[in-house]
């Protein structure tokens, strides 16, 4: 399988503070790559480097290279087109102040889909994939912000899927979602792997164990190690990795 995303010696500083310290790794196409690690270890910051939303933070300074199919993301002129290639689900549920339907139809519409039937189809498919359809199909014209926290979180997922992204980044997506729904979404994600590369940031090590092809362990701004799922859980190179993955600290 060919490499989809490569980090080559990437560091991020917020002013003087180092948040990501020389990360280097490769993510294969159509794989699930999980990043696990305690809070403040740099997981979210790392994700923001991929779609360059890190540029939104004035204090942040990025060095090194993030390569998308071999192309340096910094060299991509149209940053908006870059962001549309990457679906991003943030840890806090954010229903944009639009209707449920418009939350999902927003991005396709911007990309030029005008046909109502086509939009309807996209909205339904994305809401089904995010296990939200049954709960909202009768109130698509309600404000997205009126949904419950867990529903808004799935709406965020539906919105990310509406871009038909080549990469889907999930940042602790199950924080506000009950275990049963989480399992359902995990099933859908395993199917979506056919269509896209999935980057999963989680502090549920068991979630990483269930889903990931590769796992990376981050701690205190450092990429401690990364490798195949089975090897990381059973034969980690560093002792601290084994302790974290087995839930003995964190």
């Amino acid at each position: 399988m060919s490499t989809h995303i490569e980090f080559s010696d990437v560091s991020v500083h917020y002013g003087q503070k180092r948040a990501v310290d020389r990360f280097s790794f490769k993510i294969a196409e159509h794989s699930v790559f999980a990043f696990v690690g305690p809070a403040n270890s740099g997981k979210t910051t790392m994700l923001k480097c991929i779609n360059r939303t890190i540029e939104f933070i004035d204090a942040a300074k990025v060095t090194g290279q993030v390569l998308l199919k071999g192309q340096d993301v910094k060299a991509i002129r149209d940053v908006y087109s870059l962001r549309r290639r990457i679906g991003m689900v943030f840890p806090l549920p954010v229903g944009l102040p639009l209707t449920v339907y418009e939350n999902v139809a927003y991005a396709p519409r911007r990309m030029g889909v005008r046909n109502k039937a086509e939009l309807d189809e996209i909205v339904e498919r994305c809401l089904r994939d995010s296990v939200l359809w049954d709960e909202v199909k009768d109130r698509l014209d309600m404000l997205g912000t009126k949904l419950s926290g867990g529903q808004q979180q799935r709406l965020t997922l539906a919105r990310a899927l509406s871009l038909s992204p080549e990469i889907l980044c999930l940042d602790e997506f199950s924080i506000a979602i009950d275990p049963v729904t989480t399992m359902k979404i995990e099933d859908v994600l395993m199917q979506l792997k056919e269509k896209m590369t999935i980057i999963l940031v989680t502090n549920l090590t068991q979630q990483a164990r269930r889903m990931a092809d590769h796992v990376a362990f981050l701690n205190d701004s450092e990429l401690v190690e990364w490798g195949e799922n089975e090897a990381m859980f059973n034969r980690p190179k560093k002792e601290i990795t084994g302790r974290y993955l087995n839930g003995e600290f964190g």
Partner: protein
Amino acid sequence: MPDSTRKTRVNKSLLSDRFEKPIEWLIKICGWSSLAALTAILIFILKGAGPMISKINWVEFFTSTKWVPSPGTGNEPHYGILAMLVGTLSTTALALLISVPLGLAAAVYISEFATGKVKEFLKVLLELLAAIPSIVWGFIGLMVLAPLIQNWFGVQQGRNLLNGGIVLGLMSVPLIVSLSEDALRAVPDAYREAALALGASKWEIVFRVLFPAARNGLLAAVMLGLGRAIGETMAALLATGHANQIPSAITDPVRTITATIAAEMGEAPKNSDHYHVLFILGLVLFVITGVVNVVADLVIKGTKKHV
């Protein structure tokens, strides 16, 4: 260890139990006292208006432009406020036409685009502008704008509707900017990030995400700006030309209700009919602002239900 933590927790809940009731009462009192103040103001105005409430011809009051409150002996007084009503509403409308776009644009710029030193500088500048007393604004209308308008439009009188609208508009800009900026800043960054991640541009974020999300705060800002323009007295007196007529052009002088009260309260003999009628003018202002607020409330509720 577990024992001591439990103890502190018990203490804490006892403490909050003890304070919960008084705090609840305090909040209630604050709420009711604002209502009481409003009622007191209304009573004060009604008392001042006194006998004239039943004595004046209300039809003439609202439909005539004839305002002769203190006629010479042997002549009938006339109390027609139509011209002043039009004067107040037209200057206010013009002021809003200027202050709302200007204020919102500045707020968006400060909160979403400006950074570092520029941002700080603009905020300080805004506070300075907000601190300019209204009489100074009146003077700016009188000394700066009036000659300019005379030249540009080739009119005799530079103190007019246009002048008043501009002055009142500029006066309410700082208020609208600082309140709108607060409202925009209150929108969580997560919204901006979410929209950014969808590939939205900054302008799309402003119009599609920030404005809807901050709608109530922005509307409140506009309402307070409007309140400032309607209620302003000194600047209105100096800039509008204070002529009691219905304007037929934007360069016609007008007169506002507030300026009338300010100009005539001193000369109307206490407890004369004229004196009482001026209180009725106050009552009209009171009702206008009340109506504006109710309408704003309905607009907020209406859009909430609809979207």
